[in-house]
C-alpha cells in the first residue's frame, strides 16, 4: 500500500491527496509487527517501510517547497515547514527586528516561562528555534518591519 502511494506521488507533478484511512490498516499491522517480533527478517521489513515513509516525506516536502498545496492527512503537519521557510526568509531578508539569532516578538496569549507569566501585548526576545515552536502554537508573533 505505502509503496503504491510513494510511486503515485513520484509519478504525479501535483501532490496527491493522501487519506489516513488508506494507511490506517498498514500502521496497525506494522505496530503489531514491531511489538511481536524481534528477528532480523522482520526488522528488515520494518526498515523498508521506514524508508518508504521517508521517501514519501521527502517527495511531499519538495512539492511544498515549490509552493504547491498539500492536501490530505499531512497538510497541517507539513505547514510547519512552510512556516519554517517564512521565518527563515524573513529573518535573513531583514523583515524581523533581531539581536543576533534572537527575534523580537509579541505575546499573543497568556503563557508561563520559567515560572513567570507573560500576557498578551508583552514583548519577548527568542532564538529562532523557539520562535518556530511558539508560533506554531500561536503563542507569539514576530514584530515586522513595515
Amino acid at each position: 500500500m505505502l509503496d503504491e502511494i510513494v510511486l503515485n506521488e513520484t509519478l504525479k507533478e501535483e501532490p496527491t491527496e493522501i487519506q489516513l484511512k488508506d494507511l490506517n490498516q498498514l500502521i496497525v499491522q506494522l505496530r503489531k509487527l514491531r511489538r511481536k517480533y524481534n528477528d532480523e527478517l522482520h526488522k528488515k521489513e520494518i526498515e523498508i517501510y521506514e524508508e518508504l515513509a521517508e521517501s514519501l516525506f521527502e517527495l511531499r516536502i519538495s512539492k511544498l517547497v515549490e509552493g504547491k498545496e498539500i492536501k490530505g492527512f499531512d497538510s497541517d503537519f507539513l505547514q510547519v515547514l512552510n512556516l519554517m521557510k517564512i521565518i527563515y526568509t524573513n529573518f535573513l531578508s531583514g523583515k524581523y527586528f533581531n539581536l543576533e539569532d534572537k527575534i523580537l516578538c509579541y505575546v499573543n496569549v497568556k503563557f508561563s516561562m520559567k515560572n513567570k507569566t507573560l500576557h498578551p501585548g508583552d514583548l519577548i526576545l527568542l532564538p529562532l528555534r523557539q520562535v518556530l515552536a511558539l508560533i506554531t502554537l500561536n503563542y507569539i508573533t514576530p514584530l515586522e518591519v513595515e
Partner: protein
Amino acid sequence: MENFLKEPNKEELRELTSKILAKEWTCIKASFKPEDLIFSFLTFKYGKVNAISFSSDDCEIQLIKNNSGKFISIEGKHYYLGLNSFVSIFPLSIDDILPIISGITVSTIIERRNYSDFEIDILNDLIKLGVILEENLKIPNYKSLPLFFSLMLSFDPYIPDITGNRENSIKMLKEINIQETDKLEDIDETKLNSLIYKIISSELKINPKFSREQIITKRAYYLEYDSLELAFALIYFLDVKGNGDLFQFVISPNYAETLIYKFREELSKGFYIKDVSETANYYVVESNLKSPTLIQLILLQSGKIKRNKPVAIKNEEGIFTSRLQIPSLKEGLVKIEYNG
C-alpha cells in the same frame, strides 16, 4: 522600602545597573513609555533579560514611576532614582551614546521637565566620548538642517503658526533677512536676537509665562545627531509603528540614520492641527500628523487640553490613537470607535 531621604549618587546608581546585568532574569516590568523601553532593550542587549511585561507583577525587575519619583525594584527591593530618567543610570559606552542621550531627552519631553543635575552630570561625562553639549536654541538639529525646517519640527517648544507650517516658517525668517537655505551657524548675532524675539513673542500669545530659558537650553549632539530630534523621531515611530524601530535603534544605534531620514521625509511637507473636541474618553483632534503623542505635546503647551485624557486623531481614514495613549494589545495606530 523606598528611600525618600536622599538623592541617589552616581556610584549607587551604576551599581544598580551592574546588579541587573550580572544575573539571569526572566523579565522586566515596565510602562509602555519610550524611556522605559530604551532601558529595557539595553538590558536585553547586555544582560540576560529576554522579556518585557506591561502587566505582570511576576517580573523580578520592575521600573516604577509614582508621585514620589522613579524607582527600580529588584526582587522586591526598591531603589530610588529621584526624577532621573531610567536610561541615565546605564554604564556609559561609545556604543550606547545615542540611546542614552535620546533616552534622557525623551524622558524630559514626556515629563515636561528640564534635565536634572544628575542627567547634566551624565551628559558632561559623555563629552570625553565625543558628545557636544552646548547652550543653544531648543529647536531640532540646527547644526544640519536649514533653520526653516528646524523651526517647523519644533514640537517642544511648540511655536504657534510655525511648527508644522513650512510657508510660515520661511516667511518669518525672510522678515528678518534669513534665507531659506540658511542654517543657524550662517546667521549673525543681530539676526539671532531678532529670531529669538520673534519666537518668544509668538509663544507669549499662548503662554504668558514663557521665558527665554525655555528656548535657550542645554543641547546634546553626537556625530550628526541631535538628541532632541532623535527623541521626537522615537516618539513618532513608537506611536505610529510600535516597538520595533526603538528596539533596533538600541541594539544597533546606527539605525538612527534610517529613523531620522524617515522622520524628516514624513514631516517635510508640514502638517496641520485643526479642531479639538472633547468626548467622555478622548480629546479628538482633526490632524494629518500621525502621532497622537506629538499632538498631545503641542496641545498641552497651547493650553487646549489637560493630561487627564488620551488624544485621538481624526483623519479621512477614521479615528486613531496609539499604545502610548491608551492601554492596548496592538501597537502602532489603533483605530477606535467613536460616536461624536
